[in-house]
């Protein structure tokens, strides 16, 4: 096979180290002195696949009630790479530690240097409690860089959300009763002893449950029922393997309630796109991170914070959810085309094989990758790392997203080139578990090459 188009560094022997023997794992543990719960992913390499040891089964048993999950995610203990080029492959534990220290220092400044923060976040954040929550809020513009303005901003935004909820989520019965109480016509007691004919008050404003009038709160309520049911179904199905979302506990139920409220308020405020399936997947990581913030204040207001950050994040991708815009310049098709062009630019051979020889239309796999921001392709905790990189992009998450998708394709190029339509489709729709830091590193490299 002609390889001259493939960049040298991608083909270097670095990626071909034999799997580390398990005895090294214990040594690696001893070598660790990182205070955070960051762990490293190992990278076992066979000649034609890239995969890591699948996440240990403890990963998904993150204790949900505790607000400080130790996010084991996709990490398992690393072995050494057998060479000193570990700094090229993925950060070593010492570097990790220094990054975290750097990050904490950055976050405690009075005025945060956003550029610095973004560049730190682009290599994915450490998992220690609270950091991710604050950094995401900063990256999404929810918190201003000046620390002194935080409390007033938060207060204002949270009360605004409460106002939205009151306005949009109260049932028509509730509205009727409030009106009655406010007019002072407080009502009959059922068994209060006196006998009388109950007096009636005429309704002139069309607001009764069977009203078909446009202005009727009841009518809007019944029209929204379909949306409410859809949201309900989707929220119940979100991440069934993660107890935070789907356990039988009241904590999980309240989380689901919060997510439903957020999605419903969003749908009602945005009559243009309302609720589309998949929005629950985009909300899930945001809400998870905020709710698990060890800071009491942040955690209790996670719903309001998550709402605004969700809106912010979605604002870049709104057009993907609107069917009419599918074929337009801002629509999903054009994003997929851009991805395709990107792949072609970096790896012509792969592109040719994928699209022309095996006729794998990028729409078959990239649609889900892009519209759901890769939440379905990797484990939940891996996604959090990927989202660190996505959110840190100063040009908006879409650019990084396309870069990462391109990197995903390039990393499995050997299998893709060797495969036919069926096996390629299978591979791309069930993307194998990968070392996330490596993926991000490759994506970064591709991007910097583009600027050359």
């Amino acid at each position: 096979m002609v390889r001259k188009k493939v960049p040298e560094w991608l083909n270097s022997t670095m990626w071909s180290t034999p799997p580390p023997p398990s005895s090294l794992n214990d040594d690696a543990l001893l070598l660790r002195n990182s205070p955070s719960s960051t762990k490293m992913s190992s990278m076992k390499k066979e000649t034609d696949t890239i995969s890591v040891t699948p996440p240990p089964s403890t990963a998904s048993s993150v204790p949900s009630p505790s607000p400080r999950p130790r996010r084991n995610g996709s990490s398992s203990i690393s072995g050494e790479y057998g060479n000193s080029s570990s700094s090229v492959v993925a950060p070593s534990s010492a570097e990790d530690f220094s990054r975290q220290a750097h990050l904490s220092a950055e976050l405690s400044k009075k005025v945060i240097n956003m550029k610095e923060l973004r560049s730190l976040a682009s290599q994915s954040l450490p998992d220690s409690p609270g950091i991710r929550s604050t950094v995401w809020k900063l990256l999404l513009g929810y918190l201003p860089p000046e620390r002194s303005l935080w409390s007033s901003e938060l207060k204002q935004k949270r009360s605004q959300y409460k106002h939205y909820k009151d306005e949009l989520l109260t049932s028509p019965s509730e509205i009727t009763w409030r009106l009655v109480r406010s007019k002072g016509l407080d009502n009959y007691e059922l068994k209060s002893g006196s006998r009388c004919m109950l007096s009636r008050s005429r309704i002139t404003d069309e607001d009764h449950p069977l009203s078909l009038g446009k202005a009727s709160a009841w009518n809007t309520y019944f029209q929204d029922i379909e949306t409410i049911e859809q949201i309900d179904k989707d929220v119940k199905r979100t991440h069934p393997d993660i107890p935070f979302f789907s356990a039988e506990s009241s904590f999980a139920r309240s989380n689901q309630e919060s997510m439903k409220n957020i999605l419903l308020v969003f749908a009602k405020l945005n009559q243009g796109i309302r609720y589309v399936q998949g929005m629950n997947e985009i909300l899930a990581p945001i809400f998870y991170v905020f709710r698990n913030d060890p800071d009491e204040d942040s955690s209790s207001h996670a719903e309001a914070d998550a709402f605004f950050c969700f809106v912010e994040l979605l604002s870049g991708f709104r057009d993907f959810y609107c069917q009419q815009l599918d074929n337009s310049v801002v629509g999903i098709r054009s994003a997929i085309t851009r991805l395709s062009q990107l792949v072609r630019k970096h790896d012509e051979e792969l592109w040719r094989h994928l699209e022309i020889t095996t006729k794998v239309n990028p729409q078959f796999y990239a649609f889900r990758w892009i519209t759901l921001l890769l939440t379905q392709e990797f484990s939940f905790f891996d996604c959090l790392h990927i989202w660190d990189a996505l959110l840190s992009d100063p040009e908006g998450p879409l650019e990084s997203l396309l870069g990462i998708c391109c990197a995903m394709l390039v990393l499995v190029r050997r299998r893709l080139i060797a495969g036919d339509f069926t096996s390629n489709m299978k591979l791309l729709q069930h993307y194998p578990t990968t070392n996330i830091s490596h993926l991000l590193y490759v994506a970064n490299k591709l991007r910097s090459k583009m600027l050359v």
Partner: protein
Amino acid sequence: MVLVLALGDLHVPHRAADLPPKFKSMLVPGKIQHIICTGNLCIKEIHDYLKTICPDLHIVRGEFDEDARYPETKTLTIGQFKLGLCHGHQVIPWGDLESLAMLQRQLDVDILVTGHTHQFTAYKHEGGVVINPGSATGAYSSINQDVNPSFVLMDIDGLRVVVYVYELIDGEVKVDKIDFKKTSTSNSAP
């Protein structure tokens, strides 16, 4: 927030052909959770029509109903309220509030829904509330020839009930509202 439709005394086909079109246009499926019917439908077709509006249908026997299997009285619990249902021709004098109060105490319900008089009433006494939804088709009765079609929709929300009374007066649908509430969940007669 449970919507309960109460209606009855339709007397189809003997005294009326059908519900007024304005009522039928409002009664769409999907909004109402329960229907309680005081009786005298009288035929199966009306029963089926009511079933399409809401599958949870409770009917008691009126003296002209063709289906003899309906019970004489029925009680059900919706939310925090116990409702009782009876056609009313069994309670003599017809429409007498004292006698209906006695029936309500016997059934031990918060809200008693009866018909037969073809006249809407909502009456409160120590034992609870008696509601008569009138005749949904405006059929004549032996007491009253000139009847306005009417029915009742109750919105039961926790311990509060809002009763919406729909009446067809001079060809227009007029809606009235009555609110009442219950103080506690215990319902034992003193």
